[in-house]
């Protein structure tokens, strides 16, 4: 990339802050699953102290360990859900935008139909329906409740329409550019034009919206888990920690303060990262 102008410095710094924070949060997330699920009912509902910096919960589990461990799950859910979203969104948006005509009409009507469905209700109903049926799974030495996979797919499957529209709009404008005609004139096959010529040109808005999608997925997961429909215990996420905390809002602030604060922080961080990426990737702000 070309030089970064002084005006971009602030954005870049914000972007770096977002990124550094993510790394920081992720690095701390090294406590074991076992420790985070270790119950000690003698030490239940302890306020923050040297032994338990974030206090303990209703069954005596260390909240620091649980926020850290839960953070892993939340972030993993956010990233994988955004990945699912991006894959579907790109595929549908690209096909609709590139081929146009009837394919475009069918895909876009489908997209609009998906947009009309209330995402949250769909999420709640589907997770209620599916999550009981999946066994626990082991990934990288961690045991996850099957509900995690359900949540990932449901979030992914319900949030792609916005991205699909963005991708379609990009494709519509880029496919009219002359270099696409030039590529067609050299006999480049359609799939190659879609994925090697148009997609790299529309990557900026996709990256930005995917980043914001991660933040969205994390808060959605928290929301659904908070309602008790999301990720099931004992797998900790920030959302289901909040669920356990809501009866102690006045008596034990540490139960909700730390996971809540982290949800806010990570959402802000990811949004900063997305904003920074947008500014860095926007060709209009690039000095040639």
């Amino acid at each position: 990339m070309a030089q970064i102008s002084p005006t971009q410095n602030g954005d870049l710094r914000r972007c770096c802050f977002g990124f550094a924070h993510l790394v920081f949060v992720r690095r701390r997330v090294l406590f074991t699953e076992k420790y985070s699920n270790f119950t000690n009912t003698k030490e239940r509902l302890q306020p923050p102290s040297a032994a338990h910096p974030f206090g303990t919960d209703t069954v005596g589990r260390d909240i620091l360990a649980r926020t850290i461990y839960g953070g892993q799950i939340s972030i993993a859910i956010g990233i994988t859900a955004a990945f699912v979203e991006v894959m579907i969104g790109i595929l549908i948006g690209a096909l609709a935008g590139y081929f146009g005509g009837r394919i475009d009409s069918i895909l876009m009507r489908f997209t609009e139909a998906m947009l009309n469905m209330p995402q949250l209700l769909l999420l709640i109903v589907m997770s209620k329906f599916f999550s009981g049926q999946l066994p626990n799974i082991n990934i990288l030495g961690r045991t996850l409740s099957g509900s995690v996979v359900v949540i990932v797919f449901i979030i992914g499957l319900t949030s792609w329409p916005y991205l699909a529209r963005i991708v379609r709009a990009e494709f519509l404008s880029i496919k009219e550019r002359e270099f696409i005609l030039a590529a067609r004139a050299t006999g480049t096959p359609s799939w190659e034009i879609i994925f090697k010529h148009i997609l790299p040109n529309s990557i900026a808005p996709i990256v930005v919206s995917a980043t914001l999608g991660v933040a969205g997925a994390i808060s959605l997961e928290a929301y659904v888990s908070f309602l008790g429909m999301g990720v099931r215990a004992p797998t900790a996420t920030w959302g289901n920690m909040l669920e356990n905390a809501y009866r102690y809002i006045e008596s034990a602030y540490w139960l909700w303060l730390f996971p809540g604060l982290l949800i806010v922080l990570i959402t802000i961080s990811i949004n900063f990262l997305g904003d920074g990426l947008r500014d860095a990737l926007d060709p209009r702000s690039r000095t040639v």
Partner: protein
Amino acid sequence: MSQEQHVFLEVKDLRTRFHTPEGTIYAVNGVSFSLNEGETLAVVGESGCGKSVTMMSILRLIAMPPGKIVSGEVTYRDRKLLELSEDAMEHIRGKEIAMIFQDPMTSLNPVLTIGRQLTETLRTHTPMTPEQCRERAITLLDWVGIPDATKRLYDYPHQFSGGMRQRVMIAMALACTPSLLIADEPTTALDVTIQAQIIELAKRLKQDVGMAMIWITHDLGVVAGMADRVIVMYAGFIVEEADVDDLYDNPLHPYTIALLQALPRADRRREKSLKSIQGAPPNLLAEPVGCPFAPRCEFVQDRCVRENPLLQIVEGKHKAACWVDVKTGGLR
């Protein structure tokens, strides 16, 4: 050059229309011509007269919809291009017939390196290894006169000037040594000195490689320098077709005459001021009745308004579509 004249591209009665909300645009109205091996054909005419649409119809690059090739036949080496499948067409584009476009600033993908774009045709059409592709790309860049080709493969289009980008475009078009190069106003967007360089390049191509070329332009000066034969188009019709010298010495269509009168010539003493053509090109939204040039023609007769003249042989290889004999001013 061999004197054996071998027709390898033949276009018959090509008609292309665009269906738009404002109505149907009659862009190409029954164009027929042929091209011999190694020949350079220039297609001239003002903007919007169907030059580009004709060529893009031949390669089936017209966006459909709104465009539609209503009728016609394009025969390239015994293959009927308009009837081929899209897959088969992809094998012809770039490999056998290549096309370069007017604006080199927008014809290259800004996010891919020159090397990537240059080797794309090779990777698509030949079984060459990446290493061979790279070698070939360097040779091509060298040939079109880009210095330090090895390094420049890794540069992006914005690091090149307009003239260099057009050279890269030409190099891309030549990658598979196609037998026909269609150049759609390749010099229009460039300044005059760069134009001259690109034309030099095209001449070299003709002499060294013997490649057939169709050169779309509205610059009659360019035509005189390099073409063997010229087609003059107006409102989607071919109005005159002749060998290049014949056309300049003995234009038979009033439109060609008017075009030549509007052109400053270095080889003639300037006797009077240049003449412009009165009026504006016809609206292509209506199906043409009568000769499309009639409203602007100084030789116009009653018959011109009623009936559209067909392109016919006037003398030798010289064809024109006009009822009037421009030498006498009377009907032919």
